[in-house]
């Protein structure tokens, strides 16, 4: 009864003493477009409404007096307004400015393929994609070769991008340059990259026009960002036809730090016994690799340390091209130590800091000999044959520090600036000649990402560099724009100057060089949604000051590259099938090295295409992956200098087209098993399953009368491996700690 009375009086006071006031109005954005589902709330009351499909709202309230009324909506700035509620109806108009948000805003995509960023659904390649791309055998560079812009060069390691040589592509890990990203190898045989794709959470493959934060790469940059803390502690083991490995990762209980190590031993001896190789290996290629890492969270950031040590050896004999009774023997021992430390910190107040340091040392101990049929060392007295009798001891050290500061400007616009310093030291002993190169390289850079609206963004930057070895400065401007043209669609444009100092091999002879230079112009259109990616990109590049080696070493070379590229990825049309297709058209010529004139370089094919398809069959817990790559023939030349004053083309031609179809199978027997702590992946892969002939170019005898095709050591590569990880699940600890 009492309750009833109270309720009654409550209703009386609210209903009769005061009457309701009607509040109506509209919500629009700054351009006058009506906003649907904007939330209107009379603060400190329960009253409010949501705008309808016309952007209108209406509600009634018993409240009286001065109130704050708020309008808010996703991706828009919340607006508040003071109102005095009396008896009269109130009509309001809210204007909510659209906020530039990282997810909605256009991003400058000209020239770059971003991969592995978890926040964006529309990434091009994740680390899982890299390991499940047939033909790549979990090698980052090989997987990247299925993207447009990259050439199918099989006789040398490296990425040959848009008419650029392999050494014009540089790799960066957590901001710093990696000096020897590939294993050392013999001439005409490509080697793998040293780093596993699982080390990285993000990969950006830039085929041009990249950020002012990076330099000394004329054609392309492969920017790798290492993973943060692992998701759990685990112990791993692997065994395969060519290697064995063990490793462990320990994630601390509070999930703030981790450490781990991996050891692997690769020996292809057993495999080479089964699968015939063309060269005669007297030292079977073998590697030891040891890696360690630790990572910890700081107050508002993270410190990461990674170190790897590799040692390898190999030795092989191939027939001598000038004298069929002789052989060329080549032996290599290499050790490589790589260390990288990086520190990211959010300094507050819109400031971020990114500090990185790295140190690497690489030692090559090489011998090359002319041998007879009994494998005895020979001197012929003919200089063009005896040139192959040498030893080379080379040490390369690179130390770097780099700091980048970032200040958030209005909205999500940022200003970045910083500097870097590299010291490189190279000491080589070529038979009896010794030489040393020292370079102190400094660079300063600044760049700003301006988000003018969600539909228009610009990246403007510049870079200033000085290299002590050639004692030259350069200033490289970089500008790019992105403009949203429609739903999920945008256009980007990029322009930039790129400088690279000449390779050490030339600097041994003279230091009287300038930077080699490339100017990039790129236009790009892309349409990307969660399951499809479509890109088309056109580019023009001008090369200046390329290194010429004849008649003397100078910077008189030049060239150009232009082309158009397509990329299409589709995860939806065919059920459970994910495929991508890339096509590159390239028109390029350059005059460099001992080229007598401007020619299409030997590493450039006019047309390159790849089709990668993956299908996972749940029923069998098995993934099937196919890669088909095609490239038109590449040019080859024989330059002769009969007069002693000028190189001439004595012979030239184009190789046969390059075709390779590869497949791999991943079988995950424990997939989906409840409560299992063991995770197993079986991998079976084969490259070039149709056994098509591959010719990468030709080597000529000294007199030019004999030509020999450059082919891979074996047409095909087969791999069978088993990877096991035992996870130490900390979820129980996490629950206990939470409670």
């Amino acid at each position: 009864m009492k309750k009833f009375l109270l309720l009654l009086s409550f209703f009386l006071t609210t209903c009769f003493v005061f009457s309701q006031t009607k509040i109506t109005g509209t919500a629009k954005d700054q351009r006058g477009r009506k906003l649907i589902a904007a939330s209107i709330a009379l603060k400190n009351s329960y009253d409010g409404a949501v705008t309808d499909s016309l952007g209108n709202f209406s509600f009634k309230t018993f409240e009286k007096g001065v109130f704050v009324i708020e309008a808010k909506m996703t991706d828009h700035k919340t607006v508040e307004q003071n109102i005095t509620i009396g008896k009269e109806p109130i009509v309001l108009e809210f204007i909510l400015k659209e906020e530039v948000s990282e997810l909605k805003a256009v991003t400058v995509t000209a020239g770059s393929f971003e991969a592995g960023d978890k926040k964006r659904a529309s990434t091009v390649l994740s680390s899982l994609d890299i390991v499940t791309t047939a033909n790549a055998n979990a090698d980052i560079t090989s997987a990247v070769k299925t993207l447009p812009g990259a050439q199918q060069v099989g006789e040398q390691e490296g990425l040959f991008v848009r008419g650029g040589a392999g050494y014009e592509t540089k790799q960066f890990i957590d901001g710093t340059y990696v000096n020897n990203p590939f294993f050392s190898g013999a001439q005409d045989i490509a080697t793998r990259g040293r780093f596993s794709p699982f080390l990285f959470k993000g990969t950006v493959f830039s085929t041009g026009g990249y950020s002012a934060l990076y330099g000394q790469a004329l054609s392309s940059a492969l920017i790798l960002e290492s993973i943060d803390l692992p998701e759990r502690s685990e112990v791993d083991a692997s065994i395969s036809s060519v290697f064995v490995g063990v490793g462990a990762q320990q994630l601390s209980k509070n999930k703030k730090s981790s450490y781990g190590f991996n050891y692997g031993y690769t020996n292809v001896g057993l495999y080479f016994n089964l699968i015939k190789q063309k060269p005669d290996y007297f030292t079977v290629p073998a590697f030891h690799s040891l890696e360690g890492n630790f990572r910890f969270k700081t107050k508002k950031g993270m410190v990461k340390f990674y170190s790897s040590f590799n040692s390898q050896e190999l030795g092989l004999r191939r027939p001598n091209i000038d004298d069929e009774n002789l052989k060329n023997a080549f032996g290599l021992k290499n050790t490589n130590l790589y260390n990288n430390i990086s520190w990211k910190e959010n300094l507050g107040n819109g400031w971020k800091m990114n500090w990185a340091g790295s140190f690497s040392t690489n030692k090559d101990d090489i011998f090359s000999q002319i041998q007879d049929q009994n494998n005895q060392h020979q001197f012929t007295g003919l200089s063009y044959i005896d040139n192959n009798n040498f030893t080379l001891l080379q040490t390369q050290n690179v130390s770097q520090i780099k700091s980048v500061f970032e200040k958030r400007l209005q909205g999500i616009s940022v200003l970045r600036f910083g500097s870097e310093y590299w010291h490189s030291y190279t000491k080589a002993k070529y038979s009896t000649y010794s030489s040393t190169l020292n370079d102190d390289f400094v660079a300063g850079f600044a760049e700003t990402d301006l988000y003018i609206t969600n539909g228009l963004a610009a990246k403007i930057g510049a870079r200033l560099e000085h290299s002590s070895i050639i004692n030259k400065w350069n200033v490289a401007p970089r500008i790019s724009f992105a403009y949203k043209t429609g739903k999920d669609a945008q256009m980007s444009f990029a322009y930039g100057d790129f400088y690279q100092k000449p390779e050490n091999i030339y600097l041994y002879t003279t230091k009287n060089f300038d930077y080699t230079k490339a100017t990039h112009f790129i236009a790009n259109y892309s349409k990307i949604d969660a399951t499809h990616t479509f890109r088309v990109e056109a580019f023009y590049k001008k090369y200046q000051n390329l290194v010429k080696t004849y008649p003397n070493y100078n910077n008189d070379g030049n060239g150009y590259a232009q082309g158009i590229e397509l990329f299409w990825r589709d995860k939806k049309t065919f059920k459970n099938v994910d495929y991508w297709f890339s096509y590159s058209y390239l028109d390029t010529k350059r005059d460099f090295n001992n080229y007598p004139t401007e020619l299409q370089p030997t590493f450039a094919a006019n047309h390159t295409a790849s089709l990668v398809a993956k299908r996972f069959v749940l029923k069998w817990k098995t993934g099937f992956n196919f890669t088909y790559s095609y490239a038109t023939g590449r040019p080859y030349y024989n330059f002769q200098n009969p007069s002693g004053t000028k190189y001439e083309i004595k012979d030239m031609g184009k190789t046969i087209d390059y075709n390779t179809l590869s497949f791999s199978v991943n079988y995950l027997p424990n997939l989906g098993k409840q409560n299992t702590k063991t995770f197993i992946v079986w991998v079976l892969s084969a490259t070039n399953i149709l056994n098509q002939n591959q010719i990468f170019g030709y080597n000529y005898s000294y007199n030019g009368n004999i030509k020999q095709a450059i082919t891979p050591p074996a047409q095909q590569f087969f791999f069978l491996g088993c990877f096991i990880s035992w996870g130490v699940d900390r979820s129980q600890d996490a629950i206990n700690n939470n409670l």
Partner: protein
Amino acid sequence: MKKVIILSFVLVNTMFAAFSQNEKFTAAMTATLEQMKAAKTSEETADVAAKFERIAEAEKRQWLPYYYAALIKARMAFEAKDKDKAADEATALLDKAAAIEKDNSEIFCVRATICYAHMMVDPMTRWMQYGADATKNLDAAMKVDTTNPRPIILKANSLKNTPEQFGGGCATAKPLAEKAAKLLADFKPASSLHPIWGKESIDEILESCK
């Protein structure tokens, strides 16, 4: 005497004010819960979520309106174009609920739902992370309240949508749904405003797993 009268008058008045505030909350919550049950279209659902959010922001010390607003937003995230963004909005509301009511089984359940929404953006690459996070939250939900049927319902639902080869399907989902049905029958909510949902989901699983 006069003092006593004034004092009692003041007392009654403040009590009345407090009581009416509580009544007002209960009445508004009850009405909004009814509206939630009746909501059919996505507009109606969004309207209910906004209403819960307004109540939550006016009250500040009640976790339930934040909880319901987060629950609805989490469910809406599955249909949203930008699932990550919608799920993040749900998380923001749920964090406010969790700041008021610590280690609540129901809140863990919504956390798990949000994880599933994130996972649906790209299940193939995200199940390792978000699937595990969801399981973690459901395990926590079961641990804090063994009588709560809702974590079991969510688990059953997730299993039903998991391929048999991955240890899902009716074979594993059905027994859980049956267990959840029993728990739900015995479940006594702390008040008429506390969560009692789940019967429809159970029926749906049992229906499709006949």
